């Protein structure tokens, strides 16, 4: 398996390179009307599990009640396999008509001209009236609307209430500063040391790229330039990594050996660490993996305890440039993006519905309640669009994770981390 992974990554890179040679789709006159009895066949692909497939089938059945003659041929894969299959299709100019996209890949695909500009349908077949401007901006690449977010979420800090209750440690506060966070982690460590296996405060929280983006946002700094290069230098990355150096060097973070052993769960999802930094939607995953509904959520700590937050599109719908059914595809995107019935089916599992109407339609599960509660609480603090991620972002995020693991193992230091990250970015971002 380990030997096929780099090969697959190489192949994926080659595929997208090839896709670039294909060029964009032919311009199409966007229709403004779509008769409900129009006949069409469109293909639609998403990633996710069995449960999501059931929900998607229900949603598409609703779609067919409204448009009985539009046949939607469905397909779904697990996350990793999804991109292998889509990359191959992109090379063959054979992407499905409608496909689910991730913010990390949107720029990469859109830059190759693989997507239809849905802007032409706005106000017509596609209604984006209820969407926040900051959110729509995150689906816009090169002034073209190439992805319509099905839901959104925001960066957050989750905590395991069961674990903290057991240890007798109070829950973290919403306006924690980074110094307070450090003290809090040590407090949990101390209380959890006697447990078997020992409970830790958190895994090293500089371990993911979105965390770095969040930190940059607090300083009012960009992460990427308009032409897709990094808007930060080596010193910025090193400072960020060093901000947790004290705990890291003292071995106060959840041990990396254990994280690797528990892969893909890690400390928090494995129920052995109290804090987790991730996008708010992932609380559903946390509840399921840990097997509890008692997960709390607050803003991730910052230097001074105030926050600048952005609405991060958790899942976008795109239409392939190679589609021969652009109108029917746009209608499907509109239906999935706006229909309150569809939102009621999915809850917040695709991110919180972006429109007020959509959110009101959701019969909230335990995880939805936590997610929506958090998003409501931070509504006034969402002042930024999530940065548009350049092509190759997915690989950079993965590289960050890889390097960070080496850092925790002590194989490299923060200097080497920075150096390798930048040489990777030189290669990928150009």
């Amino acid at each position: 398996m380990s030997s096929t992974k780099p090969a697959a990554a190489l192949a994926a890179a080659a595929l997208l390179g090839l896709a670039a040679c294909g060029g964009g789709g032919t311009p199409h006159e966007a229709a403004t009307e779509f008769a409900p009895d129009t006949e069409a066949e469109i293909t639609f692909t998403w990633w996710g599990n069995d449960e999501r497939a059931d929900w998607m089938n229900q949603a598409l059945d609703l779609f067919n009640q409204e448009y009985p003659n539009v046949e939607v041929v469905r397909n779904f894969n697990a996350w990793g396999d999804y991109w292998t299959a889509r990359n191959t299709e992109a090379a063959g100019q054979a992407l499905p008509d409608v496909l689910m996209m991730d913010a990390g890949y949107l720029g990469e695909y859109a830059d190759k001209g693989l997507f239809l500009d849905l802007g032409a349908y706005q106000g017509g077949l596609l209604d984006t009236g209820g969407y926040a401007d900051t959110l729509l901006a995150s689906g816009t690449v090169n002034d073209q609307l190439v992805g319509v977010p099905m839901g959104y979420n925001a960066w957050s800090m989750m905590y395991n209430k069961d674990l903290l209750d057991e240890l007798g440690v109070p829950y973290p506060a919403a306006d924690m500063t980074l110094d307070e966070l450090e003290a809090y982690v040590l407090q949990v460590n101390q209380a959890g040391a006697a447990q078997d296996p020992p409970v830790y405060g958190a895994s090293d929280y500089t371990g993911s790229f979105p965390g770095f983006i969040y930190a940059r946002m607090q300083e009012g700094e960009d992460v990427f330039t308009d032409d897709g290069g990094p808007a930060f230098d080596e010193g910025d990355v090193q400072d960020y990594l060093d901000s947790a150096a004290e705990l890291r060097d003292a071995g106060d973070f959840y041990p990396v050996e254990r994280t690797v052993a528990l892969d893909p769960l890690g400390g928090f999802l494995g129920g052995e660490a109290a804090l987790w930094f991730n996008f708010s939607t992932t609380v559903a995953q946390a509840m399921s993996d840990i097997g509890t509904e008692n997960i709390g959520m607050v803003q991730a700590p910052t230097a001074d305890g105030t926050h600048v937050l952005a609405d991060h599109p958790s899942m976008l719908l795109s239409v392939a440039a190679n589609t021969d059914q652009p109108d029917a595809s746009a209608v499907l995107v509109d239906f999935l993006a706006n229909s309150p019935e569809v939102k009621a089916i999915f809850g917040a599992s695709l991110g919180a519905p972006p429109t007020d109407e959509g959110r009101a339609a959701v019969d909230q599960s335990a995880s939805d309640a936590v997610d929506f509660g958090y998003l409501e609480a931070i509504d006034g603090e969402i002042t930024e669009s999530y940065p548009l991620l350049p092509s190759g972002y997915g690989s950079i995020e993965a590289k960050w994770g890889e390097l960070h693991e080496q850092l925790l193992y002590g194989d490299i230091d923060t200097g080497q981390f920075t150096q390798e990250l930048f040489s990777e970015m030189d290669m990928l971002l150009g």
Partner: protein
Amino acid sequence: MSQTLEHPQTEREVRSARLRKRARARRTGGSVLFHAFALAVLVVILYPAVWMLMSSFKPGNEIIGSVSLLPTGGGLQNYATALEGIGGISFWTFVLNSLILAAGSVLGILLSCSLAAYAFARMRFRGRNLFFVCMIATMLLPFHVVIIPQYIVFNELGMINTYWPLLLGKFLATESFFVFLMIQFIRGLPRELDEAAVIDGAGHPRIFFSIILPLMKPALVTSAIFAFIWSWNDFFGPLLYLKEPGMYTMPLALRLYVDQTSTSDYGAQMAMAILALLPVLLFFFAFQRQLVGGVATQGLKG
């Protein structure tokens, strides 16, 4: 006197008896050690398999991170979930799809590769060596190099989302490994048999069907077993070419239970992995003798 004579004899007897005893004890000791060691290695080797089996009886959140074998609670729930299928598609559909592909692969490979192998091994034609080298060269090409061109070709032919891309090559003798295996086998058969048939007036078709094919049975069985197992376990091909869950094979379906971005049902995945292993295991046990015999005749390792 007799006593002095007897005495050393008894002493020698006693000594040899003691030596025998010690040797036996050493043998027993060695044997116990060896068996203990072998058992320890066995435990290490079998542990993952047993872990998988026992995990299939555990509740989903007890699986990852736990090295314990004994499930607490759980039971057959995971199997019930696995048999329910995924996304409205029955478990048996995946089994059937896998079986269709595996059976098609076996049939295609046996038919086409044996013919191609006969041509290479027994017929003289212009460019034979060149073609042979070309065929061997395809074995050296990594799979990832040909994915894109292959995908584009099949896409242009309108064969995406059908079983054709996964079967067509098998019927056209593109699996050079099997062609090579059969060529080597046919080369080992005495030419005198063909010559005798030629004297009796047999042409190539007759020689192939009446003489070579029946004698090739061990090679055919080996190829059939490998073709079945490889097709059954193939993940990448079906992932690229099949675009509807209703056409998915077992390995693809297995992956649908675990998704990093949403909740994963590890229990059902384990249960399905066990169920997916069964046909291959049965196939292996049924043909085990031929497999070992076949591999031995080929002089192939592993």
